């Protein structure tokens, strides 16, 4: 739907997304208004963002920002010395809310105890400096904004120094800074807060010198999240907590099959419920229709939705059935198709050892704890949205199209989100478009107030945009030494990108988000054939994307070749790496050393499992201990070896590795699957789409390879290697490889 609008911006964005290993680009900062130094008044507004936004929203006289206009601010220094840093990303658990301010505060020489953080908007200033679009994804926040935020801090510091030099009439070269203070040659000293107003009046310097990383005193320190107190006392607001004056809440009744329409609607009982303001037909994603109930609050809206009598017409839409789908994929897997890699497959027939394997991966829901929501206020010639989104750049265009506005007439106020894992970064902007359709219909019905469209847990679990179902088939020939002679591989699964604004990235019929993680880093003669069947189930990237399945396939098969040729799986991997892949080797060696793999005797019934995988430019290796108890696989202990170059916040890296690993574990345990029957999603909540509990949490140690290279991301790379390491441990106990997720122990 956005094809005609994004032709210039998005291909460039995805090019960066897909060429993750390219050299770091340089970021040129627009000079004008890049930073704003404010008095205490400005800060007071920042302290009550909802109140301020409500005033702004109801005032109606705030001019929309032009696309070329610079942001309100990246840095605000109040007269009391508080430094407020605006983040150009969605904070949804990954910790950029603390990491980006750490980077800026480092070069600013700020007093860390006075550093605050706030969310940005869809303003162009907050675009990813490499993507050229506002997007949180691909584990790119710290990686792509490291230099940007260092330069922001350095420029602000230079202006404060200039202000101090002028005040004391001394040479700027004679000044030093430390923890929010400027010191002069004759015992002068002044706080940043005192200098802020004068500094604001000075020009922004063109060139700044960045610190030697050896002088870092904030970057690299284990730092507690800025939001830790608020999130430990019920004070943190999320998008779902939006409450504007007069605001109504909407829930939407959706058809049981994707794309179906309303056959008949009786809303008399729903309308009779107290607090219900309107029952509205709204267009849904994929040409479907839904019924929106707008009410005073969620409870009234939900009760009224339950009271709707809707008959759905699903005669014209495909009804996907997981079992039939698997049979269809099995037919497809031996058909010729486009090839990602090619190699000579003639050695396969005569290879001394042969291994045939089929892998099946189900659909997966992201299931963030905060259900999807978006609050929309439409006024004359403009609209404001409040939502936790990873993709404000695309969302503003999608919202504008629904509301018959221009993208620059849309302001998206990014809200802290309760998780997302990819579900909040949607090429079709589905939950933004839905909220705009509801608000538009409500306005037509005379409700000229802000409308918050809220999804229930069931709406989310049943709502599609899943990690696709995949089938892999491998035929591998190898010799006694484990040398692979030929590897014939086929991969079947829906494309995430085809039919979206990113469709241009699908080359030769192959979606790179399906195949990423295949073959590399091993020097294998692989032929990879790919099919992307089209099915009536919306699909989406899910934390670590293609590596959710490719790492499992690669790392369990490599392990199996090692076992079949009676080699230690670590030694075998190291032999394959040879003198290549230094980061893989370092991460794996660190995990091996710290876990005492092979040296320490495990309790009876436990086995070691190993896997290593690179995704999003970072490498994570796991050495795990697992057992089978009463037929159920149990993960006891995990040792992680991580290579993400320079670490900005070690506490955050540890948290991201543990969290991503637990999401990887969710793929392995019973209940980690979405299935469909006759077009209807069979799961609806955490009772039947299970995620790990605290009782599933292993002991978990995270170790990081020291490095001074520019940082790479850590939001996703902790996920891929966990499931194969766990599976390898179970396979070495049972003698049977695991080739299906969630694990099925025969």
């Amino acid at each position: 739907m956005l094809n005609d609008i994004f032709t210039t911006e998005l291909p460039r964005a995805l090019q960066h997304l897909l060429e993750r290993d390219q050299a770091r680009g340089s970021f040129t900062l627009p000079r004008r208004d890049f930073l704003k130094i404010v008095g205490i008044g400005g800060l007071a507004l920042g302290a009550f963002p909802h109140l301020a936004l409500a005033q702004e929203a109801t005032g109606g006289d705030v001019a929309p920002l032009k696309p070329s206009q610079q942001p309100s601010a990246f840095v605000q220094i109040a007269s009391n010395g508080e430094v407020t840093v605006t983040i150009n990303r969605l904070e949804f658990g990954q910790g950029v809310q603390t990491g980006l301010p750490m980077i800026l505060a480092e070069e600013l020489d700020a007093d860390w105890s006075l550093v605050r953080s706030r969310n940005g908007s869809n303003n162009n200033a907050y675009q990813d400096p490499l993507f050229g679009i506002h997007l949180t994804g691909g584990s790119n926040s710290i990686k792509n904004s490291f230099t940007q935020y260092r330069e922001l801090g350095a420029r602000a510091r230079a202006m404060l120094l200039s202000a101090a030099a002028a005040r004391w009439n001394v040479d700027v070269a004679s000044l030093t800074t430390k923890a929010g203070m400027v010191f002069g040659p004759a015992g002068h000293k002044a706080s940043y807060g005192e200098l802020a107003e004068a500094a604001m009046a000075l020009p922004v310097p063109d060139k700044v010198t960045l610190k030697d990383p050896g002088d870092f005193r904030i970057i690299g320190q284990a730092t507690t999240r800025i939001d830790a107190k608020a999130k430990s006392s019920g004070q943190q607001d999320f998008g779902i907590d939006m409450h504007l004056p007069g605001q109504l809440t909407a829930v939407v009744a959706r058809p049981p099959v994707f794309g179906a329409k309303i056959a008949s609607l009786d809303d008399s009982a729903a309308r009779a419920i107290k607090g219900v303001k309107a029952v509205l037909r709204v267009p849904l994603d994929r040409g479907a229709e839904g019924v929106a109930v707008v009410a005073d609050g969620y409870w009234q809206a939900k009760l009224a939705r339950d009271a709707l009598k809707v008959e759905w017409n699903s005669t014209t839409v495909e009804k996907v059935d997981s079992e039939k789908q698997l049979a269809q994929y099995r037919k497809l897997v031996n058909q010729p198709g486009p090839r990602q890699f090619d190699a000579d497959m003639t050695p396969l027939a005569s290879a001394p050892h042969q291994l045939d394997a089929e892998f099946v991966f189900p659909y997966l829901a992201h299931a963030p704890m905060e259900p999807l929501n978006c609050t929309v206020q439409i006024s004359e010639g403009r609209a404001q949205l409040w939502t936790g989104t990873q993709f404000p750049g695309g969302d503003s265009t999608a919202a504008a199209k629904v509301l018959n506005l221009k993208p620059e007439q849309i302001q998206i106020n990014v809200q802290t989100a309760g998780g997302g894992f990819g579900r909040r970064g949607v090429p079709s902007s589905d939950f933004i478009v839905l909220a705009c359709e509801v608000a538009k219909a409500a306005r037509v019905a005379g409700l000229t107030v802000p409308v918050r469209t809220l999804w229930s847990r069931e709406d989310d679990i049943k709502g599609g945009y899943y990690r696709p179902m995949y089938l892999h088939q491998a035929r591998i020939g190898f010799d006694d030494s484990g040398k692979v002679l030929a590897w014939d591989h086929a991969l079947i699964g829906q494309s995430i990108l085809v039919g979206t604004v990113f469709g241009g990235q699908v080359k030769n019929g192959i979606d790179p988000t399906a195949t990423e993680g295949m073959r590399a880093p091993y020097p294998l003669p692989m032929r990879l054939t790919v099919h992307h069947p089209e099915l009536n189930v919306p699909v989406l990237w899910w934390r670590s994307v293609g590596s959710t399945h490719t790492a499992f396939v690669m790392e369990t098969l490599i392990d199996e070749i090692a076992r079949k040729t009676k080699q230690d799986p670590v030694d075998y991997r190291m032999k394959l790496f040879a003198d290549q892949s230094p980061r893989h080797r370092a991460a794996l060696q660190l995990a091996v050393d710290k876990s005492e793999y092979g040296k320490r005797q495990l309790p009876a019934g436990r086995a070691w499992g190993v896997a290593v995988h690179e995704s999003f430019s970072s490498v994570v290796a796991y050495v795990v201990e697992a057992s089978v108890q009463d037929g159920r696989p149990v993960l006891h202990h995990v040792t992680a070896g991580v290579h993400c170059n320079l670490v900005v916040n070690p506490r955050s890296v540890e948290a991201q590795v543990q969290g991503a690993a637990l999401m990887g574990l969710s793929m392995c345990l019973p209940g980690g699957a979405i299935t469909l029957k006759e077009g209807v999603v069979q799961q609806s909540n955490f009772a039947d789409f299970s995620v790990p509990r605290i009782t599933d949490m292993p002991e978990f140690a995270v170790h990081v390879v020291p490095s001074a290279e520019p940082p790479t991301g850590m939001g996703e790379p902790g996920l891929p290697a966990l499931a194969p390491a766990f599976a390898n441990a179970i396979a070495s106990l049972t003698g049977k490889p695991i080739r299906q997720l969630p694990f099925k122990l025969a």
Partner: protein
Amino acid sequence: MCDANSRGRGRKITTIEAATNGSDPIGTAVHEAWVKHDVAQCGYCQSGQIMSATAFLKAQPKGKQPTAAEIDSAMAGNICRCGTYARIRAAVADAAKVLA
């Protein structure tokens, strides 16, 4: 809302705000342990986690330190999709120690 109307009738109901505003020594210890261990990621589930931990520690006999298995059992009803469980365990154990 349902619970408040039916099962909650005649009972005292408290909230995360009251448990962590400093007036409740156990809630305060749990809040402080949560911050010290930097438990929260997205934070959406943490109010519930903290309430479960506070209720659990309130029910502990004075001076008794909970075992790891008891902590897991008490906290097993709360889901965290971010996977903060390792730090939840550490924070509950730490709060119990502080209160001993």
